[in-house]
């Protein structure tokens, strides 16, 4: 027994010593095991990693057509369409639902300071700086990636894509808020600053110009991925920037290079609906036609969406916001059944002003002759179907939308653009859209070119390029003598309604107050100089503890 005990003591002692050694020697026991965590350090190590970073940028950029994200959620809400603050409250678009968050676009005054509008501004601001930080991270790391095995051309392409999107984000920021902090560095735990200052718009534009000039050389002319930006996108925004700076000859050169590049206007019928009545202009907006690979030669940048595909959720609510709520039984709507061919379900949040609806050329009988104002581009009537309630009318008869009054509020049966019609057949009442949508078209570049020529005192060439658009749309030609800044702005409305950031266009030409006062009765007389810029979000001012930020004048 004694022997046995000794054996136990000995072997146990050895065992104990061994255990203590095991535990104490593992100094790296506290090292974090992160097989699943993606961080900048382990993502931006090869071309695929940088492309994943760029995909993140594209996914963010398409949120312009989503609602501002709700708290703590990456997804867009179905309220507060981000694009609304860039398009609405102008000569051509007003907020139809007076009690909703977008009412500030009609009422201005205190409504711009109120809670709903504040959310609009702060969330949009955060979204844009999120894009800028994501771009900075890619640019900084790609520029310092000497040790990585990425070929020079790819590296330049990566940097060019990120710089274009960074410039695009600063374009939004300067138009919305004026002077804003210029941040071109990746944010880290070590460089948190509480003393940001507002940099002058001119300084930001200098950075944008540098970025776009780089991209206009280093982006590819075409891309196999329909969702990616190409050289023409950088050129387009560069041309706009040059016009703003008053350098019209340079703007003309860049814009001409763009329209003479591989992209071309769509001038004939094509694609999924070409066997049915329609127009070349409206073909571009149909699902199945939007992308370059589907025959859309005019598309420069197409937002990609897909239903029930990871990465396909763009939270797009353009249809919800622009389409009439024809399924309602109030606000003058007849309570029609929601169907796929009617384009799904709308909410009538933003509507075209009466001025806009009357902009298209008509023949002597009063019928619109411009394809861009045709029944394929604008919904002006519905045909009653068997599935509609009997109260709506006789099956087969037409029921017209409410065209006549001037910009009524709460009217849910207002004519609307059909550019965003789309519904999937699984759930016709779905809030969001999952079609691919053209975001930037060569037609816009044509109009920039015309604007540059006109401002460079060359109405001849301005008319020439405008007439190429009018020709495509079967609208009567315009004479060079009829070209004026207002005509160009009208033409932009006809061509680009609900596509261009109308507010930016008007502000660039110092026409926002004048034309909005003149053509938008809901906002007329309520605008002040203050409203040319939105307020810097209070949440940013409050967090910037070490430097007090002065808000824009009047806020």
């Amino acid at each position: 027994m004694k022997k046995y005990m000794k054996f136990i003591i000995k072997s146990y002692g050895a065992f104990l010593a061994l255990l203590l050694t095991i535990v104490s020697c593992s100094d790296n026991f506290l090292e974090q095991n992160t097989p699943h965590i993606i961080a900048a350090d382990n993502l931006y190590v090869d071309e695929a990693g940088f492309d994943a970073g760029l995909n993140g940028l594209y996914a963010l950029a398409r949120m312009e057509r989503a609602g501002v994200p709700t708290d703590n959620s990456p997804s867009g809400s179905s309220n507060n369409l981000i694009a609304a603050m860039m398009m609405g409250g102008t000569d051509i678009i007003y907020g139809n639902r007076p009690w909703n968050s977008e009412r500030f676009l009609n009422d201005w005054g205190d409504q711009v300071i109120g809670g709903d509008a504040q959310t609009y501004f702060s969330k949009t601001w955060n979204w844009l700086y999120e894009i800028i930080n994501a771009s900075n991270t890619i640019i900084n790391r790609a520029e310092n990636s000497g040790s990585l095995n990425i070929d020079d051309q790819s590296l330049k392409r990566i940097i060019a894509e990120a710089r274009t999107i960074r410039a695009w984000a600063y374009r939004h920021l300067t138009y919305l808020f004026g002077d804003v902090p210029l941040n071109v560095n990746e944010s880290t735990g070590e460089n948190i600053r509480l003393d940001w200052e507002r940099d002058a718009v001119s300084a930001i534009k200098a950075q944008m110009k540098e970025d776009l000039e780089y991209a206009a050389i280093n982006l590819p002319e075409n891309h196999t991925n329909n969702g990616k930006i190409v050289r023409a996108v950088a050129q387009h925004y560069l041309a706009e920037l040059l016009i703003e700076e008053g350098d019209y000859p340079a703007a003309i050169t860049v814009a001409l290079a763009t329209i003479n590049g591989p992209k071309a206007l769509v001038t004939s019928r094509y694609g999924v609906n070409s066997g049915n009545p329609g127009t070349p202009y409206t073909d571009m907006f149909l699902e199945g036609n939007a992308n370059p690979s589907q025959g859309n030669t005019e598309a420069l940048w197409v937002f990609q969406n897909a239903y029930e595909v990871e990465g396909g959720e763009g939270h797009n609510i353009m249809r919800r916001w622009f389409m009439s709520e024809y399924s309602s039984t109030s606000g003058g709507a007849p309570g029609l059944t929601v169907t796929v061919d009617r384009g799904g379900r709308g909410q009538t949040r933003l509507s075209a002003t009466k001025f806009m609806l009357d902009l298209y050329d008509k023949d002597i009988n009063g019928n619109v002759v411009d394809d861009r104002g045709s029944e394929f581009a604008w919904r002006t009537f519905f045909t009653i179907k068997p599935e509609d309630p009997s109260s709506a009318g006789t099956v087969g008869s037409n029921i017209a939308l409410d065209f006549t009054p001037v910009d009524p509020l709460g009217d849910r049966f207002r004519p609307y653009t059909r550019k965003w019609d789309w519904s999937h057949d699984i759930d016709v009442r779905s809030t969001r859209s999952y079609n691919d949508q053209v975001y930037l078209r060569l037609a816009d570049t044509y109009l920039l070119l015309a604007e540059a020529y006109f401002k460079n005192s060359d109405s001849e060439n301005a008319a020439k390029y405008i007439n190429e658009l009018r020709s495509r749309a079967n609208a009567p030609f315009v004479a060079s003598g009829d070209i004026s800044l207002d005509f160009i702005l009208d033409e932009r409305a006809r061509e680009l309604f609900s596509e261009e950031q109308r507010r930016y266009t008007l502000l660039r030409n110092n026409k926002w107050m004048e034309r909005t006062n003149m053509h938008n009765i809901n906002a007329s007389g309520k605008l002040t100089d203050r409203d040319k810029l939105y307020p810097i979000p209070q949440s940013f001012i409050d967090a910037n503890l070490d430097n007090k930020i002065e808000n824009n004048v009047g806020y």
Partner: protein
Amino acid sequence: MKNQLLLKLTCMVFVLLAFTGFAQNKKITGTVTDRSNMPLPGVNVIVKGTSNGASTDFDGNYSITTTTGQTLVFSYVGFKTKEVVVGNTTTYNVSLETDNAQLDEVIIVGYGTQKRSDVTGSVASISQERLEEKPNTNFAQALQGALPGITINQNSSSAEQNDVSILIRGRNSINASNSPLIVYDGIPYSGTLADINPNDIKSISVLKDASATAIYGSRGANGVILIDTKKGKRGKPKISFSSYSGYNEIANIPEIYDGQGFAAFKETREPNELTSSEIDKLIAGEYTDWLDLATRTGFKQDHNLSVSGATDRTNYYVSAGYQDVKGIAINDEFKRGSLRANVNIDITDDLKFGSSTQLTRIDRSGLSPSFGSESAGAYFTNPLTSAYDEQGNLTVNPWPEDEFFENPLGPTLADNTDISFKIFTANFIEYKFPFIKGLSFRLNTGVEYNSRNESRYWGLNTARGFRSNGEARLENWVSSNFLLENILNYNRTFGDHTIAFTGLYSSQKNEYESNRTTGVGFQSDLLTHYQLEQALSLTHRTIFEQTTLVSQMGRLNYNYKSKYFATFTVRRDGFSGFGDDEKYGVFPSVALGWKVSEESFFPKEGIVNNLKLRFSYGENGNQAVGPYDNLSRLTDRSYLNFEETAPGFIPSQLANNGLSWETTATYNLGVDLGILKNRFNLSIDAYRARTSDLLLDRLIPSVHGITEVTQNIGETQNQGIEIALGGAIVDAKNFNWKASGNFSYNENEIVSLFASDQDDIANGLFIGQPISSNYGFKFDGIWQQNDDIANSAQPGAVPGDVRVLDVNNPVDDAGNPILGISANDDRVIQGQRDPKVIWGLDNTFTYKNVSLNIFMHGVGGVTKRNTTKDENVFGGVRRNWYVLDYWTPDNPINTFHRNHQDANINNVGFFEKADFIRIKDISLSYKFNESLFGDSNGSLKLYFTARNLFTITDWDGLDPELNSQRSVPLQKEFILGLNLTL
């Protein structure tokens, strides 16, 4: 159901009657005294194994009739029980020894046990009885109201009843978890409450002050709950069978409109808005009572069988348990099966091995109806709609004209299985070094492994499946926890000095992984989730977490003559989740105790016979940061390449190398009193705890592209007092009445927040106020017809509208007051959601074999928003609501607004007192005479328990304790059970 129970109860009464009546033929008399020959009045004298008994009179004299050879049992509170065998004489004078059993009770204190009388920290423990005879699904329910300083809140009601929050001495943390650390058979436990079978628990101790919890270092700040399972006792094998079953009913639901009432309400509110299908239903008188359809009478059964015992070198406890609950919400079911084997073996005199192992299977299959959802809640759904179509199937959308609304019962059609398995095993070897007296080494290992698998399929007959053409989901969770502890113990008494030292070196690793695959778009519903590979689209999500902890701890207990006590501890923890610069933290504590009653100057014959003072100070941590919160991270923002996923990422989190634990420093002052020879025990503790380096999400300028970082900033404080009192109020021959009560009061306060010390209004945090403050406009009655509304702060109001308390009137630049209600000036703090006062009162009355236990529990100082009054029926009256008393010109009340959508446009909350007193449990039990089992030492007890029978409260909603007032209602439970030991 009820009839069956009545039948069982009747049987019980007959059984009771059958066991009375015994032979009596010899009269015995005598006197009972204490050691100093003082007579003891009221001593119980019982003939062993019978109900034949007597008690001593004022002079300590007794008289009882029995037969030779029987045994007399003398028992008296505070004294050791004495047995005397009756021989030929008829006089037996007995002297009883004082008993310090209550004080000598051994309780678990973490890394060991201690005699209660030697404890210097604040430790509360509950007895095994509280865990038995009550229909508890988990141990937390047994703790509710039982111990001072511990707030157990039943957040929601369900079959599993697992949604319980546990707060010990208030809320320290704003963002981090406030849940205590649970240590199960010595192993820090990470599983759910439901995995532990309450029947296997022998004892629960709750460590509250810093000196008691400091041994758990960076995890001790929220208190520690220690749970030990049962062990075998020496003697022949003991077989125990316990079983109960019963039914559950809804305790309370505020009245909701039926079809007719709803139609009338709608017509008043918005005339001519009834849709044609609603009118059809109204005319036909076909109303749908959605809550009735969504609920049922619940049923619960629980059976446990255990065998335990001990031989010279081995003790064992083996048990099997099964619980099956059908909740009061339809389709809400919970089934638990568990097996346990506890074995301790003395391999040699110096070497010990022990194992405590548990296997649990839980089945939670089936989805409950929706109660509170905006578009499908049973509380809200229009009663003039159809639950079933003409074929008798549940409708997808019950209201043909309004497809926004889904059938609340829809989820019950989803195909759902949800099974968990758990393995928990704690094993140790302990070695006493033979050459150094008092020195021993113990190696503890703990392994916890949990796996849960769930599948769901929503077919086209559900709204969710309809939207996506069928949705299938497979999800699994695996978590594991490994612990290795090296413990060195040294216990030795040198003359008047007693020393106990514990040294620890340990490491622990926790891992968690979950995988979820969701598929949508299927050809048919036929193959449910088994057709996942045929889905139109599949998405996948993985979560992985791993944390490691390395610790060293030393504890020294010292006492001098069992009179003066001191405990010193220090623990050092290294945690993987902290920033690179802050991986390790050190947590010291000290506690002192003085048993005043052991001093020679202490009066021996006073009312107070035992007095101990305790003081402690210490620091503790709360490591509750996520495992990777210190790292820079990207988040997924994928895009598309044609219709294929193009993986995308954006930066989402900044690195924080300084991220660390929250530190709580606590002072505790306590006093323990034994009164009237320990017949009553009283403990009072006062404490102040200050938590600093609070983990707060701090806003940074959004120009960084990221708006928040988590940092260690801010401070909170809790201070309070806790009182526990218990004892035998009446202790007579055939009747005794034992009572115990506890009361605690806690004051919680935010001391500082960010660097600038500003209130954080966005998150409802205010310096100097409790963390759980309510903040908002204050209800100031109703605008009446004669009020001067035009010149008030609400000129747009209409008589019958809610009047907002106009708190501040700021002045404009010209010095004129600006009238009006604004969020900046008129929102105020309105009470707190955590209770300030909690109390519990337990009374047990025993008459012969019958025992009645009544347990009450209550909270005070709670204010909550009564959301049942946040009336919102949607424009066009599309939702049902509670029946409320509206203001009208003829009913000009000042408590609730007019029946109009705009009557409360400022969204003023109705904050109400949520204090309550609940008769939590009433148990009636009958214990059969032991003679029933002859010499076998068996016992049999039958009992009937009713839970949540009455609640006294001013609260108007569903229940003051539940978080949501639109959830599964609280249930009353009626249980009949038996405990049999052989």
